């Protein structure tokens, strides 16, 4: 029901620190958008500006077509779920959920219907008469979601709503929130620093660093075509391997020289402008495989082979640099041995070593 548009938004806190230097972002109607980034990069600040809890220092913020810079939180038609849940401790679950509607003078009967409907969806009907302190973390979380739901807001804001839950519950709530989004058909803005959450739930992910948006894209695009070293390293676990070297060219085509080894680039890559420049070569751990036919491969020394069940994480060194590979768990790999790995060169990413921007992938 609402788009959200940031136009050259600047946020400077009272102490004079500019947290968001210049934010431009368009969030589509009914989109599930997730803001990720390292701690302190301004995700919560961005979300709180949408909520109206923080003032926009400069620039324009629109919800729908309405400029909301000066609109009070209660008039923005938004609902927010906080990391600490922020339930009203002196009210029962029912009252907690009904509070927003009561303040808006919605008829009692309508409130009752909405609260019960939400409670049913979230499976908290049994607890409607309890106070929040008599609930478990997961139940509180659902009450917080319910409180936002009953309001039928145009925008749903969630600030790390799952970070206080244990791993199993988090997985469960993840799918519940996704379902909720499909059912409610409203715009969701979700903040997290958990990339699994981002990858599994988002329509689009916004990767931020130091208040600057690095890339906005679908999870798949973000994973396969990161626009710079930061995004490439931030998304994916274990992290993408980065190897710095010099780009060279011979009669067979382009290659990167790393130490005494060379890695040939696939034919389609022709970064001619960067010949003889330093570049960073990025490759994801799953694109490294054991070389069985003595083909084009690199030799690495295994430091630690970690059995994860379905696969083995091989932590090794190559030309003095750390490199991680994910290898089928049926292989036998000993710590300390030398193995040869092939690179899936189709999946290579080449970054400019100075600007750390993508050259080609």
């Amino acid at each position, binding site marked *: 029901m609402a788009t959200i548009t940031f136009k050259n938004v600047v946020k400077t806190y009272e102490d004079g620190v500019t947290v968001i230097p210049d934010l431009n972002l368009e969030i589509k109607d009914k989109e599930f958008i997730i803001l990720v980034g390292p701690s302190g990069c301004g995700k919560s600040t961005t979300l709180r500006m949408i*909520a*109206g*809890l923080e003032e926009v220092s400069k620039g324009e913020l629109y919800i729908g077509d309405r400029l909301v810079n000066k609109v*009070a*939180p*209660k008039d923005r038609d*938004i*609902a*927010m779920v*906080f*990391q*600490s849940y*922020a*339930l*009203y*401790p*002196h009210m029962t679950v029912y009252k907690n959920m009904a*509070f*927003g509607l009561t*303040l*808006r003078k919605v008829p009692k009967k309508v409130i009752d219907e909405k609260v019960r409907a939400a409670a049913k969806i979230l499976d908290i009907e049994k607890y409607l008469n309890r106070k929040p302190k008599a609930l478990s973390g997961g139940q509180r979380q659902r009450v917080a979601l319910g*409180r936002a739901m009953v*309001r039928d807001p145009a925008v749903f804001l969630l600030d790390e709503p799952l970070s206080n839950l244990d791993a199993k519950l988090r997985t469960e709530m993840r799918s519940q929130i996704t379902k909720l989004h499909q059912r409610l058909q409203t715009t969701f803005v979700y903040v997290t620093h958990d990339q699994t959450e981002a990858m599994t739930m988002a329509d689009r992910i916004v990767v931020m660093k130091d208040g600057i948006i690095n890339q906005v894209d679908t999870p798949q695009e973000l994973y396969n075509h990161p626009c710079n070293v930061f995004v490439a390293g931030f998304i994916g676990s274990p992290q993408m391997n980065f190897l710095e070297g010099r780009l060279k060219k011979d009669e067979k085509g382009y290659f990167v020289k790393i130490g005494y080894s060379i890695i040939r680039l696939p034919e389609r890559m022709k970064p001619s402008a960067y010949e003889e420049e330093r570049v960073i070569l990025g490759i994801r751990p799953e694109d490294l495989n054991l070389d069985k036919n003595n083909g084009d491969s690199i030799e690495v020394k295994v430091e630690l082979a970690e059995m994860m069940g379905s696969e083995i994480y091989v932590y090794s060194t190559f030309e003095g640099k750390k490199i991680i590979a994910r290898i089928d768990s049926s292989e036998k790999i000993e710590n300390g041995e030398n193995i040869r790995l092939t690179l899936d060169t189709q999946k290579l990413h080449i970054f400019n070593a100075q600007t750390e921007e993508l050259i080609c992938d």
Partner: protein
Amino acid sequence: MKKTKISSILTPPILTVLAVLFVIPILLVFINSFKSKFYIIGTPFELPDKETFVGLSNYIKGLSTSGFFEAFLRSVFITVGSVILIVICTSMTAWYITRVKTVFTKMLYYLFVFSMVVPFQMVMYTMTFTVTSLNLDNPVGIIFVYLGFGAGLSVFMLSGFVKSVPNEIEEAAMIDGCTPLQTFFRVVFPILKPTAITVAILNAMWIWNDYLLPYLILGTGQKTVPVAIQISMQGAYGSVDWGGFMAMLVLAIIPIIVFYLSSQKYIIKGVVAGAVKG
């Protein structure tokens, strides 16, 4: 380990002795209030028997002593009025100066804290003069004076508790549609309730028992209970009706004890809440 054991053995008897010491005077007053006035001075420690027991006649006498009943009502009015005003005003103040962080609110906070250590006698005369010239020297006016004297401790205690209330709850209320006033009365104040009740009890006790301030401001024309008791103790030409006097004392003690007992569980809650959450 051993140390805690010794203290846990010694603590109950010591506390028992202390409790008895505190209760004895009250008990004596209570016992003697049922005895005929001729036996009170001579045998204060004896329980009333057939000869000395006079039933409720002391109480009837006490209440009919000139102006005591009126003084009682006046004290109730002043105490209740002051406590309500103190709780409402200081909790809002505490909320404001904790949430709005400016140099001004910080100074205000220290001013409140500082006012706790100023002895009453130091401001007694200037205060009385000011109050009189402002026409506050009546039972309604004195409520505002009590607000001033009660504010220091109350603001101090309440702001300690407000700090422990997560800001996000108030933000949630704002998003849910509360105006600042609604945020305070529907969300913040209910959360503050235990501390607010503690503050109410502490203030009620000293205001009810206060002698000097009403004496200075209201004089003997508009007596409060402590003033009335003091005056009747002076008696006419040294002849004090000890029976009526004891009854008056009991009547003066009862309201505060009832109030304390009925809200005791909140006092403990409030003090603990403050202690644990800092």
